[in-house]
């Protein structure tokens, strides 16, 4: 029989009907669902054995103890061991994968270049002083009579001892100290915050004293005067009556106020540093502050930026460089900072890739020694300034951490805290190797509280060039931020909780005057130059002032209380 069209249709119909009784179509439906569940391009989280590693956060001198949740070797989340972490610390395990990470750059070329320039007029800028590495730098500089540049914060404050704390814009409750410490002590002291806008410290302060940006010193001078005249009134009286009290901030009057309040040696002491081998101290160059260095004196400048906890505006550094072809080599993890100016930017490993120790804390008066141990292996080709400089001077620095731990153990004071099991062990009944191992497992050595007067260092005067001028706005600078993970967009972009590094905030009136709109782009101009920024219009910003983010780009042109102008891009 010859197949007609009808029989064809019948066959097709039969096939369809029959197919419904096979699992195929139903399976197909389920599969589309599954497929749409893991859309192509959606990463599958790697599975593996879950384990905890302990370390200390090296993003700032608070050096919080950190428990890292790892899948195999890879940390997938960080948490504070005693209390919470700041948002920067919480996502620090993303930093190695930051899109802005510096990957190119050859240390050997830089070394050759330095050799060509010679060590005459060489200087090393340490942006995280007080570490073992810092001692290595100082020894190196001593050996080749270079200059060791650093801006060490001289004071530590005994938060448990203080009753009244007057802070001039210091972010006491947000990034200044170890949150666990600070909030453990928070209940015991009265906090007075003096700052132009209600920062996240101001919100939780007992008193917030709004002040026109740049006029903080009016208050501090008044306090100083009334203390000197001996009949304190107002704030001064409050400080005297509710003692012991201390004042925080980098205004020139503050050390004297603290002296008059009798805070020195009790509440405000020198930052306690863990023991250091005598040999180092003898062979270490002295600490020079950038401001004290004569202009145009540096021919070769090495910068340790990888572990920076601070950023110094470039123009202050540039002023110190010799006019004809200076050589600047920065060791950094990001393309954003000095790499923009340096002749050589050498990629360096970052937390949590390197073994490093944490500089002394500023919120405790007991010395402590903490290691930030690598959680992930750094990418190939990462250089290390200590070794680089060491090679120049023939100083062997690679083993200095071990040496220092040995020294601490030799003195045998203090106790070892191990967070994994929450034990406290007196150091004296602990073998040296176990001590070293414990520290590498995230342990912390804590010495006895020492009450020593701080070095009578005056804060560096703010160069006048920044603050003078007839520009309409006064800058309210953000405290320096540690490097942030890409996930910080949650705070910067997907909410305006924090001011993004590349953002400025204006009052609606000023925004209107400048012709910029919320979320728009603009150019921030000061005496020192200009910088492209994004704008947030924020009624909380007082008129006539501008909150500026803490990106290096902005910090380069616009310091605290600098006069500034905003024009729409």
């Amino acid at each position, binding site marked *: 029989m010859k197949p007609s069209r009808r029989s064809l249709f019948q066959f097709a119909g039969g096939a369809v009907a029959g197919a419904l009784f096979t699992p195929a179509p139903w399976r197909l*439906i389920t599969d*589309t*669902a599954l*497929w*749409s569940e893991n859309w192509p391009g959606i990463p599958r989280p790697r599975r593996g054995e879950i384990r905890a590693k302990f370390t200390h956060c090296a993003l700032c001198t608070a050096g919080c103890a950190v428990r890292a949740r790892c899948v195999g070797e890879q940390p997938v989340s960080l948490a504070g061991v005693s209390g919470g972490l700041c948002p920067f610390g919480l996502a620090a395990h993303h930093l190695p994968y930051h899109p802005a990470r510096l990957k190119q750059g050859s240390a050997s070329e830089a070394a050759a270049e330095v050799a060509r320039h010679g060590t005459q007029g060489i200087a090393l800028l340490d942006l995280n002083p007080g570490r073992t590495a810092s001692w290595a730098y100082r020894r190196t500089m001593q050996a080749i009579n270079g200059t060791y540049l650093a801006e060490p914060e001289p004071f530590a404050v005994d938060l448990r001892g203080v009753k009244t704390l007057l802070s001039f814009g210091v972010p006491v409750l947000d990034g200044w100290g170890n949150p666990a410490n600070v909030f453990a002590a928070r209940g015991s002291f009265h906090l007075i915050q003096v700052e132009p806008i209600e920062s996240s410290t101001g919100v939780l302060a007992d008193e917030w004293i709004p002040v026109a940006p740049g006029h903080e010193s009016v208050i501090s001078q008044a306090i100083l005067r009334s203390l000197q005249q001996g009949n304190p009134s107002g704030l001064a009286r409050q400080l005297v009556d509710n003692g012991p009290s201390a004042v925080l901030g980098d205004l020139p009057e503050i050390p004297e106020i603290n002296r008059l309040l009798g805070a020195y040696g009790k509440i405000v002491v020198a930052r306690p540093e863990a023991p250091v081998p005598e040999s180092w101290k003898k062979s270490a160059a002295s600490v020079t502050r950038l401001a004290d260095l004569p202009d145009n004196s540096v021919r070769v400048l090495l910068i340790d930026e990888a572990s920076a906890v601070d950023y110094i505006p470039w123009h202050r550094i540039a002023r110190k460089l010799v006019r004809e072809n200076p050589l600047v080599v920065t060791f950094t993890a990001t393309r954003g900072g000095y790499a923009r100016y340096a002749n050589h930017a050498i990629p360096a490993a970052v937390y949590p890739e390197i073994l490093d120790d944490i500089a002394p804390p500023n919120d405790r008066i007991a010395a402590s020694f903490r290691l930030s141990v690598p959680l992930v292996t750094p990418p190939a080709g990462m250089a290390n300034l200590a070794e680089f400089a060491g090679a120049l001077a023939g100083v062997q620095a690679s083993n200095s951490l071990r040496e220092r731990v040995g020294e601490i153990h030799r003195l045998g004071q203090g106790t070892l805290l191990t967070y994994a099991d929450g034990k406290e062990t007196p150091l004296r009944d602990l073998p040296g190797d176990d001590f070293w191992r414990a520290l590498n497992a995230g342990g912390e050595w804590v010495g006895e509280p020492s009450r020593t007067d701080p070095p009578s260092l005056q804060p560096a005067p703010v160069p006048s060039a920044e603050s003078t001028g007839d520009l309409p706005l006064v800058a309210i600078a953000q405290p320096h931020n540690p490097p942030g993970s890409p996930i910080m967009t949650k705070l910067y972009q997907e909410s305006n909780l924090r001011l993004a590094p590349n953002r400025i905030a204006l009052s609606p009136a000023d925004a209107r005057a400048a012709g910029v709109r919320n979320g728009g782009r603009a150019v921030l101009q000061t005496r020192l130059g200009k910088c492209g920024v994004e704008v947030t219009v924020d009624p909380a910003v007082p008129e006539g002032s501008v909150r500026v983010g803490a990106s290096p780009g902005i910090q380069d042109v616009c310091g605290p209380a600098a006069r500034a102008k905003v024009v729409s891009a």
Partner: protein
Amino acid sequence: MASQIDRCFITRGLQRCSTSRFLLWIAPWTAMLIFGLYCAGLCLLKGLNQTNMDNRYAFGLWIFLDLTVIALGAGAFFTGFLLYILKFKELKAVINSAVVIGLVCYSGAMGVLMVDVGQPLRAWFTFWYPNVHSMLTEVTFCISCYLTVLAIEYLPIVLKNRKLREVPGFLVFEFELHKLIFVLAGVGTFLSFFHQGSLGGLYGVLRGRPFAFREGIFVWPSTFFLFILSAAAVGPSFIILTTSLVEAITKKRLVKQRAFDLLARISGLLLSVYVLAKALDTLIWINRTSPGRGFLASQYYDWKPFGTWILFTEIVLCGLVPALILLAPRLRAHRVWMVSAAALACSGVALNRFVQTVQTLALPTLSFDKFLSYTPSWQETGTFLAVTAYGVLVYSFSFRYFQIFPEERELKAAQVIEPEVEEPVSAGRY
């Protein structure tokens, strides 16, 4: 040659413009459609970030469009209901046009919904894991079923085409299907009642949105019934509107005045009932529902531009006024009055849907919320235009090649023989 082929598809004895003019007419709409499809494609491929909707404005132009066109498309089910179930024979003159409009509106809405959901591939999930307590489930089921029904109802119109009916198979199928069409009309009515209602319920049940929330009867909030009423009321008006539009464009008389008149009366009647119910509902909401949930109704209207004028416009200007016009025989006898009243009624219902969707989302709920604004992106607008263009095209083709208005020839004759005679207003049968 092309025009030859074109001609032999056109019903015998009907005057249609030349092929070239027709092409000229559809060209711009086609262009619009293509642009719109491009926009929709962008949204499908790149995701909904192409739109200006956001987490706070999760529904936008598209949902407004869906609600509106489905309300306007209600003419299809309601006319069907009146004709096949209640046997209003006069409506034979417009039923085909009603079906075409319905098909256009529903398929358009369906298409836009497919773009609107984040994962169109999972559209079938609603049928696979339906949550029977969700109004949206009801809507999805009813609309998809009713779209099928409409498609089947549209089939006879297509198969009656002069050329197609030469195929015996088509001829007899059309014949047999037409005999059973009343069943579909019944089903369609049932479905439409429900999904028109559920569309209203969609917002009425939002306990979290005091502006939209309404108390109700059994499981259905009052908006459920208001939407049914308004849709039924505005459906006929929209048919009046479109038909007179087509008459104006083609410069032909297509439907006898008595059909218009009947539609106008029905529309007017239902509209007045709706306005009454709506006013009542609003009063209850202002005095009981909203305050009962801690929100003073007055506050909703503090946020510019949504002042109380919107209430007035919706209920009085675009509700009561057209209702009265359509109810007054002397007024509705004049085409201008009737059409403008119909237009008002349609825009009134559109405004109601706008308020339900857009204003609801604009208003803050938390005390530290802010009033939000939203303007659709060009991709959204493009997709919107695509639906419009699609509608016009389908209607144009149907009008050209199918017999949308059975009375057309008769009226043509009437016009030729005694052009000046208007036949009496409403050959009253009830």
